[in-house]
C-alpha cells in the first residue's frame, strides 16, 4: 500500500481527541453523585411481604437456580400455611426475575438496592428477617408498574448532551 495520504487521517484523529479534551466528560462520580437507576431495576436483594405470602412455594419452584429455600408448616387454627423459613442466597441468585414474575400473590419484589457487598460469604444469605418489606427499603418496580410510577425517573446518558460541536 502506498503511503500517500500524508498524515491527513492522523491529523483528523488528533482533532477528535483534542476536542474531547475540551468537552465535559460523561463521568458520574459515584459515591457522591448517584444515578437514578432504572425503575424496573432488578436489585441484588429480594424483598418479601410476610402478610401477603401464602407459602405456596411457586417462587421456589420457578426459580431456575433453586436459590429460594422455603419451609412451611400448617397452622390448624387459621387454616393456612405458616412460613417457617424463607431464605435466599443472594450470592447464588442470578437476579433473573422469574420468581417475582411467578408469585401469584404479589408477595415478592426486587429491592432497589445494589450496595450489597459483604466481607463474608455467610452474610450473603438472606434470612427471613433480612428480607422483610420494611418501609426504609425501596422496592423496585420490576413487574409492578404501579410501584414503578413512584420511583424517580431513570437518569439517561442520552439526556446528557455534551457533544456540542
Amino acid at each position, binding site marked *: *500500500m502506498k503511503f500517500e495520504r500524508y498524515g491527513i*487521517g492522523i491529523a483528523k484523529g488528533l482533532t477528535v481527541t483534542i476536542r474531547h479534551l475540551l468537552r465535559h466528560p460523561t463521568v458520574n462520580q459515584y459515591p457522591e453523585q448517584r444515578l437514578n437507576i432504572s425503575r424496573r431495576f432488578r436489585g441484588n436483594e429480594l424483598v418479601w411481604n410476610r402478610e401477603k405470602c401464602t407459602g405456596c412455594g411457586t417462587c421456589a419452584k420457578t426459580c*431456575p437456580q433453586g436459590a429460594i429455600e422455603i419451609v412451611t408448616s400448617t397452622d390448624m387454627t387459621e387454616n393456612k400455611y405458616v412460613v417457617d423459613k424463607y431464605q435466599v442466597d443472594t450470592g447464588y441468585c442470578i437476579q433473573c426475575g*422469574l420468581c417475582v414474575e411467578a408469585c401469584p400473590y404479589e408477595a415478592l419484589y426486587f429491592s432497589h438496592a445494589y450496595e450489597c457487598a459483604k466481607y463474608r460469604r455467610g452474610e450473603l444469605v438472606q434470612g427471613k428477617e433480612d428480607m422483610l418489606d420494611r418501609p426504609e427499603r425501596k422496592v423496585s418496580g420490576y413487574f409492578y408498574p404501579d410501584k414503578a410510577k413512584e420511583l424517580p425517573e431513570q437518569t*439517561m446518558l*442520552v439526556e446528557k448532551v455534551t457533544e456540542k460541536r
Partner: protein
Amino acid sequence: MAVRTEPFVLNMGPVHPSTHGVFRMRATLDGEVVIDIEPVFGYLHRGIEKLAEQRTYTGITPLTDRLDYISSMSNNLAYCLAVEKLAGIKVPERAEYIRVIMAELQRIAALLIAVGAFLNDCGAYFTPFLYMFRERERIVDLFEMVSGQRLTYNYMRAGGVSQDLPEEFMPALRKFMDMMPRFMDEYDRLLMQNEILIARAKGVGILTGEQAINCSVSGPVLRASGVNWDIRKADPYSIYDRFDFDIPTQATGDCYDRYRQRVEEMRQSLRIIRQAMEQLPSGPVRAELPQLIRPPTGEAYARIEAPKGELGFYLVSDNSIAPYRCHIRPPSLINLTALRDMVRGWKVADLIIIFGSIDITVGEIDR
C-alpha cells in the same frame, strides 16, 4: 533469513489482555513470525447445553443471556424463536416490533464493542474503545429501562417479551437515534482513515470468499469477504421482510474490510430501528401461555443473524417441561475455524489484530 533459528512455543492466554476472555493460543513462533497456532479452548466451558436439559423452557432464557454476553438480546431472540417454532406459538404484533428494535439495538451495541476491541488490539490506547463504550452505555441505559438489568437482560419470553416498554422509552430512543449518526461520523474521523491503521490492517489476514464459505464462516466476517449472505434477507425470520435495508459487503476480506463492514452494518441497523419505530403498533406484548410450556414431541431449528453471524438453536422436545436436547450453533466458534489459515506467516502483532477482527466471545465458543 540468514540462519535458521529455533522456533519456540509461546502461550498466548488464557489470561492475556487481548484474547477477549479466557482463550488460549499455543503459538509456535520463529522470532516474530507465527509459524503455527493451536487454539486451546474449554477454559470457559460452563455446560450450558447440558444445563438446559434440566431446566424449564422459561428457565433457559437466563442461560442464553450468558452465551454471547455482549449480545444477550439476540440470543434471547434466537432461543425464543426456536421455542415458538417448536410449540407453534403466535407472537403478538407489538412484541415482534419490540423484539426487532431490541435486537438491532443489541447489534449496534455488540458491534461497537467488536470494533472498539479491534482498534484497541491495534494499539490505540483504549481511546476508541472507551468512546464506543460510552455509546454502548447509552444503549445499555435503554435496555436497563425496559428490562432492569445492564447486561443479562432476560427480556424476551416465548410468546413475546416479558413486559411492555415503559412510556419514557420512546422519547429516549428517539434522542439516541438522533445522536448516534453523529457519533458514527466521529469514529470514522478518529481512525477510519488513519494511515497507521490502514498500514496495519489493510491486506492483513485475508480471507477469500471461497475460503470463508468452505469454513462455513458467517456474519460480518463472511460479508467482508464479499459474500452477500445475511439471514435477515436470505431466510427472513420474525418480521424482517417488512423493512427496507441493504446488506453491505466489502471486497477483499482483510482486517480493515471487516472493520469497515461492521461500521456499515451499524448504519443499516439504525435504518431498521427507525422504520420499526415508525411502524410500532399498540397491543399486547405477550401471548397467553401457561406457566410451564410443554411443546409437542418434535424438533426445531431456528436461526437468526446475530451480530457475530448465524446463531442457531436446535431444540428437541419430548413433550415435557424441559427440552430433551438443546444444541447451539455459536457463530464465534465456527468463525474461529478460519483463524489458523489466516494467521500463519504473519507476525505476532498481526495475530492479535486478526484474532480481534474475527470478534469472538469466549462464552459462546465454550458454552
